[in-house]
């Protein structure tokens, strides 16, 4: 990954930059808190943190409009917060409580919001790719101009159903944006060890799908690329592939000792490429905000996250009768 560009100027507004800072920070602090609650035994099972990848979802959401749909894998907390789902409901789902988005029956990997058009939360690697194309199939069938953001990782990019979907998505010109969050590790297997061709978006060319690689650590670059992709899809010329070069700082899940990469590698990216620090620098060096202004934002976010954690601890476990509900509509 290239060294960070000198962040002197940007052609975005102060309000937008502050918004990005706030939303990315919310995801990071939320995830840190989730890690903490996991350590306390309040969150069980699998828990995949999004720390490091925040610029991807925040940049994408900046180009979305009402009615656009999103679907992703099991590393999904960031996506939910970015599309406006309530941190309390997300955290309470992590703790398996009644106040969670799925009443405690889904867990970290399985949350949904019809209201925010968030379609999960899927635990089978790659399964969300045809499902996301199906959301776009419905939009096209119903004749609206919405798009579906279908996220998957560099690991899922080797699943066969991704390419079955590419073929049909292009054949039928579905308004789907395939967002490959390439964080360079499929659980413990680096790209180098799993994938012969270094570029994942270029695989779309075999199916006639346009796309590009994007610096996924730069929220402004993500937003700019997404705006272009969205315009193409809304005009009926989808699908489109965005390969986001990003990085996760934490292990694959909570029980991952991350011995497949060096601490130096992680530290180098944190110090040179961190998405939040990048926006912070833009704000401070551009004279848009002082350290004190940003401290106030930090404090506000910390309060939101603490409130979510309190709610998630206080919310009762689901009633035992819930075992037998929601099996059939």
């Amino acid at each position, binding site marked *: 990954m290239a060294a960070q560009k000198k962040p002197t100027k940007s052609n975005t507004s102060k309000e937008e930059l502050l918004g990005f800072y706030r939303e990315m920070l919310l995801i990071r602090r939320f995830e840190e808190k989730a890690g903490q609650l996991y350590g*306390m035994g309040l969150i069980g099972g699998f828990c995949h943190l999004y720390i490091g990848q925040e610029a991807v979802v925040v940049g994408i959401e900046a180009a979305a409009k009402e009615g656009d749909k999103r679907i992703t894998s099991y590393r999904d907390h960031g996506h939910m917060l970015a599309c406006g789902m309530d941190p309390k409901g997300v955290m309470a789902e992590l703790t398996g409580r009644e106040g*969670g988005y799925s009443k405690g029956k889904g867990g970290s990997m399985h949350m949904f919001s019809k209201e925010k058009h968030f379609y999960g939360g899927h635990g089978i690697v790659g399964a969300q*790719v045809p*499902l996301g194309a199906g959301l776009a199939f419905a939009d096209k069938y119903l004749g609206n101009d919405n798009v579906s953001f279908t996220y998957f990782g560099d690991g899922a990019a080797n699943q066969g159903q991704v390419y079955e979907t590419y073929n049909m998505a292009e054949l039928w010109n579905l308004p789907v944006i395939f967002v490959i969050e390439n964080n360079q590790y499929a659980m413990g297997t680096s790209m180098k060890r799993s994938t012969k061709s270094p570029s994942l978006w270029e695989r779309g060319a075999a199916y006639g799908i346009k796309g590009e690689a994007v610096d996924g650590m730069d929220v402004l670059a993500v937003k700019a690329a997404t705006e272009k992709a969205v315009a193409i899809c809304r005009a009926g010329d989808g699908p489109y592939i965005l390969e986001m070069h990003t990085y996760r700082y934490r292990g694959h899940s909570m029980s991952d000792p991350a011995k497949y990469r060096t601490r130096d590698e992680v530290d180098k990216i944190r110090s040179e490429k961190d998405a939040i620090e990048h926006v912070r620098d833009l704000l401070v060096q551009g004279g848009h905000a002082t350290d004190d202004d940003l401290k106030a934002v930090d404090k506000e976010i910390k309060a939101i996250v603490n409130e979510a954690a309190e709610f998630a601890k206080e919310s009762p476990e689901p009633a*035992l009768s819930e075992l037998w509900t929601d099996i059939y509509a």
Partner: protein
Amino acid sequence: MATQILMPALSPTMEEGTLAKWLVKEGDTVKSGDIMAEIETDKATMEFEAVDEGIVGKILVAAGTAGVKVNTPIAVLVEEGESADAVAAPPAKADASPKTEATAPVKAAAKAPVEVKSNASPDWPEGTKMKTMTVREALREAMSEEMRANDRVYLMGEEVGEYQGAYKISQGMLDEFGPKRVVDTPITEHGFAGIAVGSAFAGLNPIVEFMTFNFAMQAIDHLINSAAKTLYMSGGQMGCPIVFRGANGAAARVGAQHSQCYAAWYAAVPGLKVVMPYSAADAKGLLKQAIRDPNPVIFLENEILYGKSFEVPDLEDFTIPFGKARVWREGADVTIVSFGIGMTYALEAADKLAEDGISAEVIDLRTLRPIDYDTVLASVQKTNRCVTVEEGWPVGAIGNHLSATIMQRAFDYLDAPVINCTGKDVPMPYAANLEKHALITTAEVVEAVKSVCYR
């Protein structure tokens, strides 16, 4: 404010661990992300990062300590100028663990036999005009009628459009509904099953035709993990109104990979509804019901039955509810329970048995999830004997499940053990004589009935 750092749980199953090494000492300043310690779990040595910033005020558990329980305070983090002593004393709060409702274990109490009332009732009014129709035509009429009534219903699959259907079920439908609603797919079951499920999440009502259910094996992850479980995983927010239909089970001489019955597989999955009709009237009424159902429905057809003709009510609109068996033939001596093509053997056997003076009651389950237990139990309570008939394999068969249910709920009524007639426990052979033997035969059903009647 000083905060306690607790021994973290670093895997889904960790209850205690070894504090292998401290990487900070008292007085060090730490910030979020700094590694504080190495902790050994049963699986690996993990680095433990600081979440908050502060100064390490006191280390409470020395390096090398084994068996440190999760949530034990291991260190205290303080702010500039603060003492660690104030918070070092109180024990870790135990109120973090959720309150669990007390549950009483379920006792298996011996109960007096309960008489069960049959659920069977006529499917349409007496005197309804009937017309003769093949199962194929009935399926086509069901889809076409529902597509005329609801423009969110569409048909997707291999060769459903221009080819007019591999088994001609969808013949003429492309002409009527156009390519938007009769969607030809590439040969890509996993992919199009997922796309169809996604479109159902977003409010459409897809009918997915699998040329045969053998090919649905490529797509079974979406049928089960994506379609059947999402309503539950979403706490009731997001359902999946979809029908997966196609030929199931053995046809004739098509070998092991094209001759499998999936009835028991799908019937095992909560969240799915499973239908396996025998007659044309049931094919029509149940498929219309399936398309209207807000849940994922697996609709298992049979190639050999497609061309068979039955009487179908000549009504503008009729459906048959799920979970209601049909009594095809009333009898007094034995109950034969079957479904789908198994009914062919069951009815033939009943005719032959009548010649020998045995009166068999023949029940067609029609739906396998839900199952109409009451109609079966009421019949067994009357005849005191039961034989089940299906083409699928013997281990984990639908008949196994019925036997268990009958044993639990009508044990005192049984005069003989229930016999399950099934396909043989082998992959389907190609040779004509072997194939015939691998499936159930009418003679085997007759023999089983005579056995339970001690004849």
